């Protein structure tokens, strides 16, 4: 009996281990050769969020549209895996490499190897720290200050000069993204001084913390005195919407709700009248990268070092259609 349990446990453990091993390998299904087109390697961080899964999906579909052969490698959040993937892309002699770096430092050596092999590298959605910017051709990221600014400007226009006490749900403290989205929003609402941020607290980018912090805001402020919520991401807003509903408030009308990212669930909330606006962080980072690489390979057009993706504002009128468009992407 004891021996059986031992072997059973060992077998289970082995199953778990091999299960983990499988995911780390390069995606072979995507290796279709399109004659004449470019072959591009994409070292992706992982699939830790719906947004990142959408980024990978769009990288595939945008490549197919352009006749580009894409090889995707999932690094499972490990820089070592990304370095391995870049080296393997160099060895395979790809035409270009897309890199979504998991951390910002430690890329000089492997990017130097790519440069020596004359393979251009484009950074996607995050930047790296390096003393030598010639290690990469270009970068495609969103302008996170602009995202906050768009959200702030929307609120200022919506209020048209009325006084408003805003509560802010910040992301995880210490992330540059958080400082930028905060700064941008403050710039967006600046002006006559009718809009004031009265409380700000971190909701760690999660639904659960967003809900807990919003619950606290509602209790700490006098009833009816909060006029709007600004959340650094949609997930915290979805939590905050639940907190408002449970406190007997109507999010979207009693309290205006504006957040950033454009995940499918916030479009659903907007369609239901629970949220008022979101600023999209587009997952289509690869599309612009393909266009610049195609031009660069064709006639040597050197792209700018930083290409910003648009920060588009979405409102409830298009929410239902946008939800349908996105729900299978994320």
């Amino acid at each position, binding site marked *: 009996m004891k021996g059986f349990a031992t072997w059973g446990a060992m077998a289970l453990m082995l199953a778990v281990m091999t299960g983990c091993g499988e995911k780390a390998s390069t995606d072979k299904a995507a290796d279709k050769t399109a004659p004449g087109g470019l072959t591009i390697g994409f070292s992706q961080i992982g*699939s830790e969020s719906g947004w990142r899964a959408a980024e990978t999906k769009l990288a595939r579909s945008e490549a197919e549209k352009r006749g580009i052969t894409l090889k995707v490698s999932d690094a499972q959040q490990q820089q070592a895996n990304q370095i391995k993937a870049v080296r393997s892309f160099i060895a395979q002699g790809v035409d270009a490499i897309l890199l979504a770096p998991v951390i910002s430092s430690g890329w000089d050596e492997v990017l130097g190897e790519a440069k020596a092999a004359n393979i251009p590298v484009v950074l996607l959605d995050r930047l790296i720290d390096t003393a030598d910017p010639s290690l990469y051709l270009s970068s495609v990221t969103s302008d996170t200050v602009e995202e906050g600014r768009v959200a702030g400007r929307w609120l200022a226009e919506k209020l048209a000069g009325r006084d408003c006490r805003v509560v802010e749900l910040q992301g995880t*403290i210490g992330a540059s993204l958080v400082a930028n989205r905060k700064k941008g929003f403050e710039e967006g609402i600046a002006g006559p001084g009718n809009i004031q941020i009265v409380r700000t607290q971190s909701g760690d980018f999660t639904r659960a913390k967003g809900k*807990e912090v919003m619950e606290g805001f509602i209790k*700490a402020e006098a009833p009816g005195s909060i006029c709007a919520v600004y959340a650094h991401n949609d997930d915290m807003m979805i939590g905050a919407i639940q907190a408002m509903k449970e406190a007997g408030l109507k999010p979207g009308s009693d309290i205006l709700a504006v957040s950033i990212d454009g995940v499918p669930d916030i479009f659903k909330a907007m369609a239901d009248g629970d949220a008022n606006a979101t600023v999209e962080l587009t997952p289509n980072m690869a599309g612009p990268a393909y266009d610049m690489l195609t031009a660069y390979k064709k006639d040597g057009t050197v792209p700018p070092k930083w290409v910003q993706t648009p920060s588009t504002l979405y409102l409830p009128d298009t929410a239902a259609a946008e939800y349908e468009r996105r729900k299978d992407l994320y």
Partner: protein
Amino acid sequence: MNTPAWFAAARSRLLLLAIVLLANVLVAPGFLEVRLVDGRLFGGIIDILNRGAPVMLLAVGMAPVIATRGIDLSVGAVMAIAGAVAAATVNAGHAWPVAILAALGTGLACGLWNGVLVTIFRMQPIVATLILMVAGRGIAQMITQGRVLTFTDAGLAGVSSASLLGLPLPVLLALAAAIGTGLLVRGTALGLFIESVGTSPRAARLAGVPAPALLIGVYVWSGLMAALAGLIATADIRGADANNAGLWLELDAILAVVIGGTSLYGGRFSIGLSVLGALILQGMRTCILRSGLPPELNLLLMAVVVALVLVVQSPACGPVLARMTARLTRRGTA
């Protein structure tokens, strides 16, 4: 049961809880107000009980494990797995009771896995449960495919939003688990057996205590409590968030148990005091979140207060505090 002895041990924690509640009143003057809204009690104290319910449950499971000189680092990950299983089950079209049973069953299986590694393979508990702590979140992510798996099933959402006698269901579940477990271990010799395994497994075995079965049992119980906490966390946001559900809560649970006076060297534990520890932690968190201080200070404040609490409870300060609280209570009753 010796009531005065129990009260002596609880006294310093109750005093701490009172201080924490007082701090809450200072940052939000309406804190102690409790109103009835739609048949559900609504107020600061209820929030602390409600938000503290998951860590209370984890502490109820963790205290017996620590009493055997073990530790369960996997409870946060088990919360994530149980939540993911529940959400995936209702989304596959099954009824919510099936989803709840599936989640609890998953918790049992996770606990059994830990128990087998510790008992049969004789792994160090910290290493054995570390395996599931790391792998578990991966398993949960595989189930949710990296997304927040939302659901609309009102039955499953009810685990968090339903209420009975005005109290939110999570509070009742946590209190029921604490009282049930407390009666089970102190109403019978079970608690003594668990402590004897922690003091000396060999002596316990020679004295006829079924040590292996007990060891597996405490890990299974911890897994079950974690699954229940995971159900509450998932129902709370109507979605399974594999990346964040229960993240770092294993540390909160251990801290709650330690504030409750349970020694990490095993051989001594108290369910009631561990639950008080969880409430003290949640009270501090609520106070910091509502204080209006810059969020950059959150972690620092929490660390300073926890350090103070532990110093006050240390053997060096214990007798002084006991004398002080004894004098206070004497004056109070006189």
